């Protein structure tokens, strides 16, 4: 069956050990997570775990049912393809060579990224965007010599007035 990349938002109780319970389910059932982001939400008692992964239809149903069985999980929702806004944050440290500096800066401008640190040997840039944009930026930076990079993994929210919890 064809696999497709999906983003799942999981509201969980903001308690000790809950993240482990959620990730342990994926390990136990043999599912592979691409990215995972966790943070506080509009409700202090809940955290939101955003997971992106490639699955087929049967796997998607299985993951959602298994997540719903976990005691600390309050709400599970697959972010709609059409309605979803997905973003990642990239921090990337690249070599600062006089010969390539202007190329790097052109790229930063084209991607509407920001330079957040600058010194004689390196510069650090910050970029927000969907996964494709982040990947493209990284590819562009490779020839200039990437020293280090980190990315947050996808967070996502749906357009429109409704929140996931009220769905």
């Amino acid at each position, binding site marked *: 069956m064809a696999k497709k990349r999906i983003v799942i938002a999981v509201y969980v109780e903001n308690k*000790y*050990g809950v993240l*482990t319970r959620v990730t342990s389910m994926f390990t136990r059932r043999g599912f592979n997570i691409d990215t995972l982001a966790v943070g506080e939400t509009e409700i202090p008692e809940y955290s939101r775990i955003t997971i992106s992964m490639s699955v087929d239809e049967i796997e998607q*149903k*299985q993951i959602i049912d*298994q997540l*719903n*069985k*976990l*005691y600390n999980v309050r709400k599970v929702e697959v972010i709609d393809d059409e309605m979803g806004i997905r973003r990642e944050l990239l921090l990337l440290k690249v070599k600062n060579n006089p010969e390539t500096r202007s190329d790097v800066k052109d790229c930063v401008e084209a991607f509407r990224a920001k330079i957040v640190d600058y010194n004689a040997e390196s510069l650090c840039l910050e970029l927000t965007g969907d996964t494709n944009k982040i990947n493209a930026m990284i590819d562009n930076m490779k020839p200039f010599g990437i020293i280090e990079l980190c990315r947050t993994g996808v967070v996502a929210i749906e357009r429109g007035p409704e929140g996931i919890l009220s769905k």
Partner: protein
Amino acid sequence: MILKGAEIVVKTLIEQNIKTIFGYPGGTVIDIYDQLLKHSDEIEHVLSAHEQGAAHAADGYARASGDIGVVLATSGPGATNLVTGIATAYLDSIPLLAITGNVGTSMIGKDSFQEIDITGVTLPITKHNFLVHSVEELADTIRLAIKIAKSGRPGPVLVDIPKDVQQKLTEYVPAAPVEIEPLKTASDADVDAAVEMIAKATRPYIYLGGGAVRSGAGELIQELAEKIDGVMGASMMGLSEVPVTNPRFLGMQGMHGHYASSIAMAEADLIIAAGVRFSDRATGNTFKFSTGATKIHVDLDTSEFGKNIAVDLSVDADISDFLTKVIAKLDQKKNEAWMVRVDTLKKQEKSYDDPNFLPMLAVKAASDITTADTRCVTDVGQHQMWAAQHYDFTEKRTWISSGGLGTMGFGMGAAIGAAYGSGKRSVLFTGDGSFAMNMNELATAVTYNVPLTIVLLNNGVLGMVRQWQTLFYDKKYSNTVLQRKTDFVKFAEAMGAKGYKATNIEEFKAAFADAYSQEGPTLIDLTIDKDEMVLPMVPAGGTFDKIIVERSDK
């Protein structure tokens, strides 16, 4: 009233109608044991020989009674010794409360003596677990643990209580026994869809599992079978929910199921699966499993729908509720051709029986002598399948066996627990391999004079693995021949139980009649041939048309 945490643990269990618990003391549960002594007229504690035995006993208690089983162990090795017992209960969806002590909260994370992260260890094998951080949340945590364990699809829940939490004081307010979450009910749309599928079917087969036992749906299932003129078969976990005396009941299906039951399932045009999970031992090759049948799947756990087998209608509801509603809407059906076919299959099955097959004769002889309410408990291996095939179950919850995990060593603890849970005598079918894993618990059975008869089918080999080696590994018997010199009769006597030796069916019948009439634990060592096989057999991942019914060398 202001009480210490340890006393709150015991008072909460008593308040929740827990009458019996199984366990083993140690450094971090001394405070709780101190309170168990103080309250011993209100709650009984059964001391096992090993924590694993206590966990299986709590499990056996739950299976026999339908209520929750409770086990108590100390931190570190006490807690890790529970792991196999908890996993066994998890795979078979048995409500179990495991309480462990742990080192004091200030000592946690320091690799203190007998410290282990048992909530971490048991994460994938519990329905949920708790580490209790403060004495104020202790009573409610235990109540919630019981509620989670018993609600919906049941399962084990572990509560880990640090020693300082047990020693601190707080106000204890008694509460009523917790009520489980209301079970989901079947929607009209699902009921109507099912009724329509049933109306079209001419070869219906009702497939019941552990969920049917949990729902107590036996009567409704028989009523449905009658009304749709169909037959019934069970997964191993569904045994004893429907009496074998019902001619529509074809017995266990699957890898070692009854011939008629497995073939009827393969030929059915409608399978109504009630509380099963389509385990690989039941289905064989999932891609070729009953491809011609429309499938209705009723379960309380939606994650079971489509997990192993794609179904046409999934009903997220309590089985009894669903069946009640469906039966009310059905007209009496007649499927004469199907009944004729099933009769032919039954006759064929009979023709495969070897009338001199000693394991079968022994199980049948025991089954004839025991009362209907006797709990038939097993370990895991060939003896387990022979008991599943040939024991005549007529009352509910009389079959107690480790299904999903297939835990050798389950039997002794479970049989003790089952005797407590039912108030009746247990008969344990075991083998020399499984029995040796936890035979220490015979000491427990003797101490408490547990009404238990052990039938040890002794073939000197690890028979089930040997059978696979015979059939699929070129008769290379790697490490399955037990070159032991154990005298099980002397062992039984040394432990304080009565032992019997039998080498043929007449000796066995006489020994069993005497052993079964005793008050306390008895053991019969029955010698059987090392090359006996469990048949029929659908090889792992195979299809029902490749069923092996007879030994090729006979």
